[in-house]
């Protein structure tokens, strides 16, 4: 599990150097922004990929996040952490991108009918094969397809909350800010996401474990 914001925040040298680069950019030195882009792109990409689930969208999110950060640099509080701030911008844009993708997909599959934003979906309906054989489950590729399906079946808010909490180690307050929810509601969103992922994946994980056990016995 990667817990990105803690590692960024706990490095005072990087935070100081970020603050200096922010000041220089604000003072009109466009090149100083390059330092920030080069330093934080990888982390933002990881978040964006986990949220969008594809490399092309993730790369677009990274670029857009930095462009927006540059434009909004005047609103950035001097004492804040640039890494966390650009991360939040990226998470917000990734949500917009996911919504846009969902609409495009819905239009393609069912022209004239737009799917409602944030509509809850049955995770199992998105899982590609409800009863694969244990032999097939031993193949990691198959399990990967199931995992991607289960993640894709979460609502945007649930996926964002899960990615930010479980993989990126963000605090509940930070998640609540991105999702524009109260802390309690953000916490519940993490609960729901884990519950759905568990419901969707546990049968496959157990079947995989059983298949492995049979393989070891024989």
């Amino acid at each position, binding site marked *: 599990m990667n817990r990105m914001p803690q590692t960024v925040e706990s490095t005072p040298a990087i935070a100081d150097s970020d603050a200096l680069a922010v*000041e220089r950019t604000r003072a009109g030195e466009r090149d100083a922004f390059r330092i920030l882009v080069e330093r934080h792109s990888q982390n933002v990409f990881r978040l964006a990929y986990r949220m969008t689930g594809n490399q092309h969208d993730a790369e677009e999110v990274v670029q857009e996040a930095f462009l927006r950060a540059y434009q909004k640099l005047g609103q950035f509080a001097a004492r804040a952490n640039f890494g966390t701030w650009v991360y939040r911008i990226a998470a917000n844009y990734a949500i917009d991108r996911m919504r846009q993708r969902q609409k495009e997909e819905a239009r393609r599959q069912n022209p004239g009918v737009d799917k409602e934003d944030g509509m809850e979906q049955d995770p199992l309906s998105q899982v590609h094969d409800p009863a694969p054989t244990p032999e097939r489950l031993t193949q990691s590729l198959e399990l990967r397809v199931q995992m991607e399906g289960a993640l894709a079946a979460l609502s945007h808010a649930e996926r964002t909350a899960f990615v930010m909490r479980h993989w990126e180690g963000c605090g509940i307050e930070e998640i609540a800010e991105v999702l524009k929810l109260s802390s309690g509601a953000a916490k519940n969103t*993490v609960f729901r996401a884990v519950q759905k992922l568990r419901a969707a994946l546990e049968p496959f994980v*157990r079947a995989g474990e059983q298949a492995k056990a049979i393989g070891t016995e024989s």
Partner: protein
Amino acid sequence: MNHLTEEQLIAFRERLGPENTAIARHLADCDECRAALERLDSVLAVLDSLPVPDPGEDYGRRVWQQIAPRLPEKSARWWQLWMVPRRLAAIGAVAALVVAAFFVGRISNTKGPIGDSAASQAQVRERVLVVAVGQHLGRSEMMLVELSNAEPANPGQKQVNISAEQRRAEDLLEENRLYRQTALQEGDAGLASVLDELERVLLDVAHSPEEVTPAQLESIRHKIEAQGILFKVRVVSKELEQRQDNAKPSPTQNDSTKRERNKI
């Protein structure tokens, strides 16, 4: 005994609840709940194995190349330009230079005839600038030579750490800008031109990653060599030294030195 709910297990696993100690105590005593937590763990562990593609070491650089042309120009207020901490330090250095020039000028005024005062002060100002720029070029040369000779700390290491040179380049960059502007104001186009070339190299070094591969280091070295910046810096430093050695250079000598440098 009441067993833990799914919500409590998730809260424990994701560290969401305030009652983690109580849950941990229960888990220590209850096989059934421990098994439930293990099942949850195995699902989350499988999810953790989902790969994230590696966008490559130079990803940040590529992102910059893609967004740089789309960034709007930021117009800063004049005072903001001077409020960057590192620039303030450089301003301090130049201010010290001006104060030194003022006092040296006063001392020399008391010795010379009153009619020569203006010319003498101009010479003193130039002498102080020559000393300061000479030192700056010496520091820049040292940094570039060290960078050119940088090697991995251990023979087996694939990356070379150039963070020390990078930080020095950042400091030198601010000083360099101020000396270049001063040289332009003094009408020393040759010195300003060499400082301008040096500035580009310093900018490249300051914006390089802290750790570079031997190939990246080679590319930086190649840039330094291709521009012949080390040679130019050495030539100008030598000239500045000569100017320092001449206690009272005549105005014609000064002009000819500037003209010579303008040919570099």
